[in-house]
């Protein structure tokens, strides 16, 4: 290890390399360089606004995914939960004439409830969360399809709440959902880095036995995180409903894998115990940039998958490489 020979006050560059977000930052810089060189308009404010708007809907779920992943579990059902959250809000507003705010609260409560059920089943039956949430993904997708018989639900009336959720714009093409996402990201960053609970999240995912031996309520931590990701998935669905005005029971099908990809690009470990909210958010921005960039340069959209795949491996490889060069600090 290089750490032994390191001077007590590392240089600026060395201090920079100590951060887990280095891999994703490099990936983002490369993606921006490539697209900007091929299409000058890529750095226009309008384009950047589109990117953060797309990143917000994916990113709000990815923040929850990395939080849960750090505590050692994963949730594949977020896509179905996302669609269901948006649909419940849309249905209550259009078909039941509910007060939109009340409908919104009920919608995200249902999503949080779905997350909690995932957690309760996983933790009490001791089934791997991969299996529990795979089942939940299919189950809730089926429920969503049943609710509207496959049809999308649209809200044609002007509902102020929807503008507040994602329809409205802050500036240029930046939708308000991007702002909410930044706030949510900041809250989760503080929880993870600056509260005792964050310490428990790291410990639960890092080494459950040790955490438990030291009195960390590991089961409670996991259950709370399952609930939080459910809540955030529903919120993401409501954001998208706000921007699109419609929600279809078939939307959000790739969301779970995309959220996991954003987390992994951002320096989270699939084994838990390690990760960064900032990195995850940069990961979501990287993926949104690829989406927008490929259309702008006129490349077939299918390259999106290949590109993201490449970035996932490259960013993780870079993190591992850096990990060998210097010892991580957290």
């Amino acid at each position, binding site marked *: 290890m290089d750490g032994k020979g390191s001077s007590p006050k590392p240089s600026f560059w060395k201090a920079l390399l100590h951060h887990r977000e280095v891999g994703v930052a*490099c990936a983002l*810089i*490369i993606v921006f*360089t*490539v697209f900007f*060189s*091929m*299409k*000058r*308009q*890529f750095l*226009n404010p*309008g*384009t950047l606004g*589109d990117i953060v708007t*797309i990143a917000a*809907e994916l990113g709000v779920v990815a923040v929850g995914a990395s939080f849960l992943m750090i505590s050692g579990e994963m949730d594949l059902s977020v896509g179905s939960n996302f669609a269901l959250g948006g649909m419940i809000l849309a249905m209550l507003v259009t078909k039941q004439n509910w007060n939109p705010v009340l409908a919104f609260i009920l919608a995200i409560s249902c999503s949080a409830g779905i997350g909690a059920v995932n957690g309760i089943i996983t933790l009490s039956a001791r089934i791997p969360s991969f299996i529990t949430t795979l089942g939940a993904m299919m189950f809730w997708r089926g429920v969503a*399809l049943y609710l*509207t*018989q*496959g*049809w*999308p639900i*649209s*809200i*044609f009336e002007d509902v102020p709440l929807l503008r507040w959720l994602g*329809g409205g714009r802050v500036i240029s*093409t930046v939708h308000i959902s991007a702002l909410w996402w930044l706030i949510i990201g900041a809250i989760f960053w503080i929880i993870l880095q600056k509260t005792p609970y964050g310490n428990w999240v790291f410990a639960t995912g890092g080494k459950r036995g040790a955490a438990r031996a030291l009195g960390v309520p590991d089961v409670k931590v996991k259950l709370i995180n399952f609930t939080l990701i459910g809540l955030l998935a529903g919120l993401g669905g409501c954001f*998208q409903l706000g*921007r*699109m*005005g*419609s929600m*279809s*029971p*078939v*939307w959000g*099908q790739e969301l779970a894998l995309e959220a996991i990809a954003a987390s992994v690009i951002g320096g989270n470990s699939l084994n838990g115990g390690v990760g960064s909210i900032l990195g995850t958010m940069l990961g979501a921005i990287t993926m949104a940039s690829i*989406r*927008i*960039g490929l*259309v*702008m*340069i*006129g490349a*077939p*959209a*299918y390259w999106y*998958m290949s590109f993201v795949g490449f970035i996932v491996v490259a960013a993780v490889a*870079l993190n591992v*490489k*850096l990990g060998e*060069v210097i010892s991580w600090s957290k």
Partner: protein
Amino acid sequence: MKRFVGLLLVLSLALTLGGISTTVSAADNMTFYVIAHTGPGDPFWAVVQRGVQDAGKALGVRAIFQGPAGYNVPEQVNMFNAAMAAQADGIATSISDARAWVEPIKEARSRGIPIVAINCQEPEEHKGTIPYMAYIGMNEYEAGRMVAYKLMPKLKKGAKAVVAIHQAGHVGLEARAKGISDVLTAELGGKVDKLDITQDATQAIGILRSYLKANPDTAAIFTVGPLGAIPTIKMMRDDGLKGKILYASFDLESNTIQAIKDGICEGTVDQQQYLQGFMAVVELYLNAKFKLDPADYDTGRGFITKETADIVEVLVKDGYR
């Protein structure tokens, strides 16, 4: 470590240079986007893509076809926004959702970007809410009614039928299905079921088989596109249903044509989607160049039967119909 960073720099530099050269070659030309709710992985959209590309070549402009891997409106809207950000000279898009397209198209029009709709439109009750300049395609609901009327002479009063839908929730396909079942219910008074057969061919066959087992008196099957037709035709061949159950579909694709020639399929609606790609680029080009207003273009509501199947078969194989 240094070597690794160096490698990354070289890689990005190489990509950068590669990028500049392509930018220069297309810099003076106009760029048009055609954005669909599904990409060229669907044989139907591969023909549209061909129309787009051919129009681009013929006119000497950059014409780009884009679409998400599977039916996905939010992703399509994101692609549309990206095309706007790329400062396209015109964009064509399918109106895959009556609500989601309102703001993006308003935004594009306010920026002075000409927009035409292709392939599918918002349903009747919302007509006029989305400010695209023209529609190039067919009326899905009317086409559904048409195919039902084509089979009507061969069906008895009270006959049961099933409409198999491979993308539940897709506005255009749902409208086709509704057109079929509205006519059959009204004219025959029989039961018409809607069946979600998914986009997975193996699953679709299984779902159809178990439906027919449960409903042995089914007199007619309708599918609403090639992804539904391919598994249905395979099932009808495997289970020897030719002559026992009437079958009709939408769109031209080689399996469907062969089935028509073999007498398994009564006929298929041809919406000539090549035109949707080609004419969209032409109309956008003419608007951008000469300020000619785009006009609605009915890409056709022909019904291909055994008599006409041979003629179009060659063109289907070549990817033009």
